């Protein structure tokens, strides 16, 4: 409902105030008058009338009144049904993730307006003060109204790149929450579900949802106290099998036509293969290589080397790793170290582990690397 109002008025604060007043009125009237046949329509209409009244009284927003006058001719009341509301939600998501907004603003706005988190909840999740987050959100909303960022689903010619931006925001929220803040990961998955329901024909949307579910399923097994547990050593009984089944089911439903398979679908397919009892390394390796070719990402190429090592041996994998230029990347060093260790090149392995340790950012990672060095 909030999405419908925001979309109609093009103003977050006005929509929020009007919605609150409408709910308050409903709480007062419905116990005695009875609940209307279409409560959602009643609420939206009431909120709209409240907001129009406010706009009429406020000359500063006269410009918005012109906008309203132009749209008055549409039969708003007739349109307030289940099918109209999802379009507004989609408009809202694309607006929050507009490229003209800074990435951190996109993330904050999506969590506030689409996921409905409070300012303080978002601030806590991103480890900033409530005041900082409030300023960030205010700046973003001001940018939207002053610069004229439209409330609309992008046209077909730019939809793919705009959708990619939305998915990137959702995945960013998920990754932010992955180790540190489970509530953020849960919100990302919730957002993924909303998007998948609204955009059933977009395979990348389903792919991202499946990917997040398959990653999230392993949360409980990733740590043993303070220690990081590698995938192959994880206690599978600690995995959330409903999430894994759901992720697998999503992938099964997708028509995996190779030519149209995007990065999220491929990553989800890899994650699904990684949940099997015996890992099919040649298939995993092939998917990683396809992903690296598709994205051109050196980090993904690095990840592909890990799979290649299992399928084709550490020497082939090391050749792939050494062709990459990632001197500041912790995992480039740790991957090289692991491969060198397997090839029996102990001194070089130890040196590489030390390079990785120097760049490690979390305590579990540091302990893991220190453990590796000590085990020589």
């Amino acid at each position: 409902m909030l999405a419908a109002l925001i979309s109609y008025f093009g103003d977050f604060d006005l929509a929020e105030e009007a919605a609150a007043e409408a709910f308050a009125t409903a709480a007062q009237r419905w116990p005695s008058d009875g609940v209307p046949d279409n409560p959602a329509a009643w609420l939206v209409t009431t909120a709209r009338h409240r907001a129009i009244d406010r706009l009429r009284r406020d000359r500063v927003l006269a410009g918005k009144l012109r906008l309203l006058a132009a749209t008055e001719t549409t039969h708003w009341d007739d349109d307030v049904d289940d099918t109209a509301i999802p379009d507004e939600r989609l408009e809202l998501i694309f607006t929050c993730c507009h490229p003209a907004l800074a990435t951190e603003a996109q993330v904050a706005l999506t969590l506030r307006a689409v996921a409905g988190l409070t300012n303080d909840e978002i601030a806590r999740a991103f480890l900033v003060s409530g005041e900082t987050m409030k300023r960030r959100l205010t700046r973003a909303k001001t940018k939207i109204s002053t610069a004229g960022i439209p409330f609309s689903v992008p046209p077909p010619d730019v939809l793919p790149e705009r959708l990619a931006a939305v998915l990137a925001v959702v995945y960013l929220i998920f990754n932010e929450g992955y180790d540190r803040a489970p509530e953020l990961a849960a919100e990302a998955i919730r957002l993924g579900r909303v998007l998948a329901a609204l955009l059933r024909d977009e395979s990348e949307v389903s792919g991202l949802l499946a990917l997040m579910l398959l990653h999230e399923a392993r949360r409980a097994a990733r740590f043993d106290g303070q220690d990081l547990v590698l995938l192959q050593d994880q206690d599978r009984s600690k995995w959330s099998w409903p999430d894994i089944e759901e992720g697998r089911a999503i992938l099964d439903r997708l028509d995996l036509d190779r030519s149209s398979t995007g990065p999220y679908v491929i990553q989800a397919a890899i994650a699904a293969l990684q949940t099997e009892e015996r890992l099919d390394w040649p298939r995993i390796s092939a998917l990683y290589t396809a992903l690296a070719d598709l994205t051109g990402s050196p980090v993904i190429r690095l990840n592909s080397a890990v799979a290649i090592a299992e399928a084709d041996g550490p020497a082939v994998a090391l050749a792939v790793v050494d062709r990459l230029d990632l001197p500041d990347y912790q995992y480039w060093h740790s991957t090289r170290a692991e491969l060198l260790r397997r090839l029996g090149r102990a001194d070089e392995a130890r040196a590489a582990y030390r390079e990785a340790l120097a760049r490690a950012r979390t305590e579990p990672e540091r302990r893991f690397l220190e453990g590796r060095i000590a085990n020589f």
Partner: protein
Amino acid sequence: MQYALLIYHMPGALEALSAEEREKVSQEYWALRGEPEVTGGVALHPVETATTVRNQDGKTLVTDGPFADTKEIFGGFYLLEAENLDEATKIAARVPAVRLGGSVEIRPVRTRP
């Protein structure tokens, strides 16, 4: 909504073109100026012709050169009327400076209350 498109050139970009290509680029700029959405605009003479006025120790100081010591050079602007930012962006993307290594800044214009 009214927008200003502030055009920034990559230094040397125009000079690197042949006279024929430069003429073609110039025609593109004039063609954009003639589009119905474009309500105003000017092209500025090169940065060597610029003079800057500022205040130093309470006195007006006049010096040679542009204000901004940036790599990109401000070359002029368009004023345009557009429904929203996305429509303004479509026009901004057609400004020749963009494909020649420069950039266009889109800023909404203040209207008098």
